[in-house]
């Protein structure tokens, strides 16, 4: 028993030496992950998009139209950057991408309002960019409805209705919106908290596959196995342990950035955060071992893990909800640890629900750790016989 620990220590020591021998290691376990965290932390600094450029086509040119223009300009989301003469001109600006939307105030608008002719105000927004389009739609709809109500109120005042009654008359049903269990409507919270683990899983997969694959490629696998006392389990444990520690520290750094620096609300203890982070790292290391065990030729294993890792962005349900996908992909989505990690984050960390609502996700993360067992024999024979080495033609 004691010798196993000594062997693990020896393999880990050997691995640490190997790590310092190539710049690739330093890049993948330190430089790139830290750059990623800084990138996503600073890209969405503002939390919600503001001052998106829009245009007004004011064909009316009256006090009313100018009031409307000013009111649109002061909303936090949009900023009137252009006053254009015609609808076609505005359409061309929209197509060229310099504005995200525009409002057309028709000719004789003021006169038509006064004579109760119900003028038509059209607004256009570009929906090719989903978030910008969605926000633009909400913003323009809301502000124009408010302005329409304001006119309604003025008219009623002119009719002599008592002021306190008017509001109830104009807007009999008010909608109050709340974000359930989450006080912030900050996009950076929703994007960074998911994208950062997705980026880190790419590095975990890459390093796991690479650190094992390079031993086969460069024919050092027998020596590695020798160091571990010819036990594949010891060999893998010793090799992956340094990475587990490094990636766990990176996960905790990420948590620190999110919950301390970016002020994402936490409703759970540090212990649970550490446990879920550790399980996340281990689950992906297990998948990495599975990839290289399945395809012991490194370039194929790297292709496989890259294909799988990049798909996580789609299948974790962050971009498009999983329940809305075809059923096949809903099952497939369970095959991504980041999906379960995201659920733990949403349910336990952000919303503060009791453990029983996320316990299943912890179980799934544990389940991934059984994966290497299915390929361990194949991997061991690949390490010994080195029969998966690609032949390099010297020319």
């Amino acid at each position, binding site marked *: 028993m004691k010798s196993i620990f000594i062997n693990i220590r020896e393999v880990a020591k050997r691995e640490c030496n190997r790590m310092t021998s190539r710049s690739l290691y330093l890049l993948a376990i330190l430089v790139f992950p830290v750059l990623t965290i800084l990138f996503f932390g600073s890209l969405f600094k503002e939390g919600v998009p503001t001052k998106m450029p829009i245009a007004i086509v004011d064909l009316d040119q009256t006090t009313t139209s100018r009031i409307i223009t000013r009111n649109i300009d002061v909303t936090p989301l949009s900023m009137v950057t252009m006053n254009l003469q015609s609808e076609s001109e505005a359409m061309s600006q929209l197509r060229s991408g310099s504005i995200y939307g525009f409002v057309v105030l028709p000719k004789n608008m003021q006169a038509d309002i006064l004579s109760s002719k119900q003028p038509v105000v059209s607004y256009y927004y570009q929906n090719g960019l989903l978030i910008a389009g969605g926000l633009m739609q909400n913003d323009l709809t809301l502000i124009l409805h408010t302005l329409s109500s304001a006119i309604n109120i003025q008219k009623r005042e002119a009719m002599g209705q008592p002021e306190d009654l008017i509001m109830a008359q104009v807007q*009999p049903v008010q909608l109050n919106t709340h974000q359930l269990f989450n006080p912030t409507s900050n996009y950076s919270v929703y994007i960074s908290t998911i994208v950062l683990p997705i980026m880190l899983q790419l590095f975990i997969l890459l390093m796991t596959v690479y650190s094992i694959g390079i031993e086969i490629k460069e024919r050092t696998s027998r020596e590695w196995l020798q160091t571990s006392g010819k036990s594949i389990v010891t060999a893998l444990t010793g090799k992956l342990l340094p990475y587990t520690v490094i990636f766990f520290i990176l996960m905790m750094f990420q948590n620190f950035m999110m919950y301390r620096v970016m002020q994402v609300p936490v409703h759970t203890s540090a212990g649970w955060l550490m446990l879920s982070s550790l399980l996340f790292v281990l689950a992906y290391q297990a998948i990495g071992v599975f990839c290289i065990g399945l395809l012991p030729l490194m*370039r194929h294993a790297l292709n496989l893990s890259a294909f799988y890792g990049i798909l996580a962005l789609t299948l974790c349900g962050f971009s498009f909800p999983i329940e809305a996908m075809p059923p096949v992909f809903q099952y497939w989505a369970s095959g991504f640890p980041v999906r379960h990690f995201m659920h733990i984050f949403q349910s336990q960390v952000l919303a503060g629900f009791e453990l029983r609502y996320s316990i299943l996700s912890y179980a799934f993360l544990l389940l991934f750790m059984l994966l290497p067992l299915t390929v361990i024999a194949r991997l061991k024979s690949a390490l010994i016989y080195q029969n998966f080495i690609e032949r390099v033609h010297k020319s």
Partner: protein
Amino acid sequence: MENRNLKISAQIREGLAGMLRIWMREFQLIFKDVGVMVIIFAVPLVYPLLYSFIYYPEVVSDLPIAVVDLSHSAESRRFARNLDATPDLRVTAQTMTMNEATELFKKREVRGIVEIPETFSADIAMKRQTTVSAYADMEFFLYYKALMTGSSFVALETGKQIQVTNLMNEGLTERQAEVTAEPIRLVDNVMANSAGGFASYGIPAALILIIQQTLVLAIGILAGTARERHPFGTLVPLYRKRMGTLRLVAGKTAAYFTIYSLLCIYMLGMIPQWFGYAHSANLTGIMALMSPFLLSSIFFGLTLSVVFKNRESAMMLYLFTSIPLLFLSGIIWPLSNFSPVWLVVREIFPSSNAMFGFIKMNSLGASISETSREIVSLWIQAGVYFLTACIAYGYQVYNSESLRMDLLKLPFREMRNRVERGVRS
């Protein structure tokens, strides 16, 4: 004079022949390497199909919500029915208390809650303002959007009806009441992707990114392999006939350009057609945008490829950059909210302008002149990266040449010995 002309034309002919040889040699290298074949062909062929199937439903409809009806009146029931009738929402549970609804939410059986207050019908009868609360799930942006769209529509419509009824009771005609309630008629015009489909939005952009990423990766992998294969680890082989910076860059570029032009027909022409994504761009427009994009991506890849010592380093760069580049392009986060630093970084990568330009052309129907900013930027990138590629390869050629010269000075036996062992001295 005549003599000199002959000399130049002979040189050009030799250069073209050299370029053609490198071009064909590059084809050979690509088609012999299974790993590269997977990246150049399998990824661009499979990803678009896979993404299209995953995002097949395109929009979130009939989001399951719970209604907490504290009013128990005809009005509140009608309100709930109207919520159910919207395309966005489906009322799957009616609960007595907020706690019950929360429990369903925690179990993820419902994705939103609408609470109708106890005083709902009384408020309406007494002409008081009543407040309905909507609780949204923030896990997915599209769920939030569906609940907001559906519930605010019903609240506005219900409000309008109440207002019109009240005004008619005061003696106005129906038309007068409607005009008073709605002094301005608002017309909502959605440009591009009117259904708000997710695939129509995301996939065309992803395709452009896939083109650049697989190009850079394939060029990088082949460069890494070349270094692994050549004695002395040089990027350029030591044969005299394969040297010459310009013909190397031109020959390799021609090989990738031909392959990717064909792939573009599939990715940008056939996929949007098959799955019904926007395809308002015409052929000239797409060619005007894609030619500088392919060229700049290839030159960019060639420039980067000189730093890859082996196959794996290219893969690492690919994994590191793919997702950040998606965000950097400005299709997720509005460009008007980028800090100046990231706007500069954005200009480094050909994909950013190409993605933006492609969405403009294909979904908004922008013309070439309306996309000129992107096209000009791409040509500038192509020019700059052509120069860097020439400098990088020029240095590699110089390296190989001087190594070759050193070797030639040695006696034959010693030379062969060194080549076999792959050591320089």
